[in-house]
């Protein structure tokens, strides 16, 4: 006798332990297999783009902190670069180096979070997560030295950074740079050879290069498919042209590659920071920009390689102190376009891992 069965639709989220915030997926299951998936966003929509229209260019920096709240530095950087492009400001050398150091530290912190939560989604009971947080705390300590805050940093200003790093920052950074590679080795020993993890992630939710490019996917998710596209390399902004680093690439574009590539990128970021520390020279850190920036009428789109992908800001100026239009090209949001294609046919447990491997941040998705 054939058994009657019918698909079950489950709302995964917005209150689910591992949807990385208030994300909701409406998923149709056949048993454990996913038949259809539809992402639903907007639970954290704060209207940043509208809010920015009535704030001055400096005040908007505080809004960018809250987009991808685990990578505030890179948001700041992308935004001030757009402002500088719009206003035609050239920041001083030391300011640019400080920005790059801060942004690369932030990239490590963000990747640590991504790795930790990905493994938490795999069910490793918070152990790797806690290890990742341990190192992230040290980066946050460095940020506290730099700018007095740990998460919502507001470190960068149009034309540089707000203030030079304190004396004690440099020795602390050197200690961190010396110790971090051992910790990265530890994660690799803990997990990347682990047979359970390999079985769970290899070959799962494969994304091809064509799919990724067509879906405007950028960042580690694109590079995991084996496509060498890193804006720091192909379009060097700030001082990335003067430092040597490799772009780690994946091969298959599966969950394992997306996990591995972040660990490799952490090593490269450390390399960049090391070189920046060697190259940085004393000097001013902030160009002479008035407190109320009034860029000329026009528009500018500036993008950087954020930890989650191409983070772009499109600014339109009408000559006043506030941007006429402030548009965020958020990588988390656009990377989710391909989520449905990656999920269908896989199982409930894979869904969580795939979502974790894309590494979204709801602050940035919903804005």
């Amino acid at each position: 006798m054939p058994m009657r069965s019918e698909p079950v639709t489950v709302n995964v989220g917005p209150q689910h332990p591992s949807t990385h915030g208030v994300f909701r997926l409406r998923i149709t299951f056949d048993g454990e297999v996913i038949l259809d998936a539809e992402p639903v966003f907007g639970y954290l929509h704060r209207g940043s783009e509208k809010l920015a229209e009535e704030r001055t260019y400096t005040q908007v920096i505080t809004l960018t902190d809250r987009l991808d709240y685990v990578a505030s530095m890179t948001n700041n950087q992308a935004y001030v670069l757009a402002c500088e492009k719009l206003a035609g400001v050239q920041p001083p050398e030391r300011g640019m180096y400080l920005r790059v150091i801060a942004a690369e530290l932030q990239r490590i912190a963000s990747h640590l979070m991504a790795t930790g939560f990905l493994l938490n989604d795999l069910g490793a009971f918070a152990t790797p997560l806690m290890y990742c947080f341990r190192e992230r705390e040290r980066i946050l300590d460095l940020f506290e030295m730099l700018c007095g805050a740990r998460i919502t940093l507001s470190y960068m200003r149009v034309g540089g950074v707000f203030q030079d790093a304190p004396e004690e920052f440099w020795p602390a950074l050197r200690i961190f740079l010396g110790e971090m590679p051992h910790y990265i080795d530890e994660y690799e020993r803990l997990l990347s050879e682990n047979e359970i993890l390999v079985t769970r992630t290899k070959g799962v939710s494969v994304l091809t290069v064509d799919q990724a490019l067509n879906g405007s996917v950028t960042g580690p998710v694109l590079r995991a498919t084996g496509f060498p596209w890193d804006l720091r390399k192909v379009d060097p902004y700030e001082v990335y042209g003067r430092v040597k680093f490799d772009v780690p690439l994946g091969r298959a574009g599966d969950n394992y590659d997306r996990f591995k590539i972040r660990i490799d990128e952490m090593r490269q970021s450390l390399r960049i920071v090391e070189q920046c520390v060697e190259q940085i020279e004393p000097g001013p850190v902030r160009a002479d920009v008035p407190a109320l920036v009034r860029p000329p009428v026009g528009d500018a789109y500036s993008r950087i390689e954020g930890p989650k992908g191409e983070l772009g800001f499109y600014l339109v100026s009408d000559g006043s102190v506030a941007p006429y239009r402030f548009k965020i090209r958020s990588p988390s949001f656009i990377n989710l376009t391909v989520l449905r294609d990656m999920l269908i046919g896989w199982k409930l447990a894979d869904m969580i891992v795939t979502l974790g491997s894309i590494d979204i941040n709801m602050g940035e998705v919903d804005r």
Partner: protein
Amino acid sequence: MYGLGILNGFMVTLKNFIRRPFTISYPEQRAPQHPRFRGEEFTWYEERCTGCASCAKFCPLGIIRIVTHPSQETPAEGDSYAIDVFDIDIGRCMFCGLCVEACPYDALFMGSGFEEAKYRRQDLVISVERLRTAEKRPSTWYRPQLEAQNYDPRRGEPMTWQGAGREPWPYHLPLRPTTEEMTTDREAKP
């Protein structure tokens, strides 16, 4: 060999089992805090404040409310305005520090504490009285002159208004008449 990866993982967790925990028990132990830390209660030096309300203008959220009146009948150059109201609603504050950055006279500083939890939202508004009477332990954030002195708000002495300034500003004089006297004066006048 199969299974070695798992064994490696076991060794790593065992190693961390033997290590000291990296967390601390908060109220008894405290993490070291950098002097630049942007804390909750603001430090304000009335002697340095001219009542220009730059801080209120630069606040992205508009949570600083300042009401002033001229301190003299015919204010001469350099006379500051007397502050009636200086409310900072830290319930909505995001501690970006733009107000401190905006202050041209180094009168407003970020605080260094972070234990300001209250039961009601209205208790979170810092009033001018509290700003006046609070112990002055300013954060060195955006104040290079304090960093040059190696001032640490968590350990050092409370900072006087003369010590906190960037330069000896000729117009900054200690307020000889206290605020009570001034208000009584004004009320008496008409």
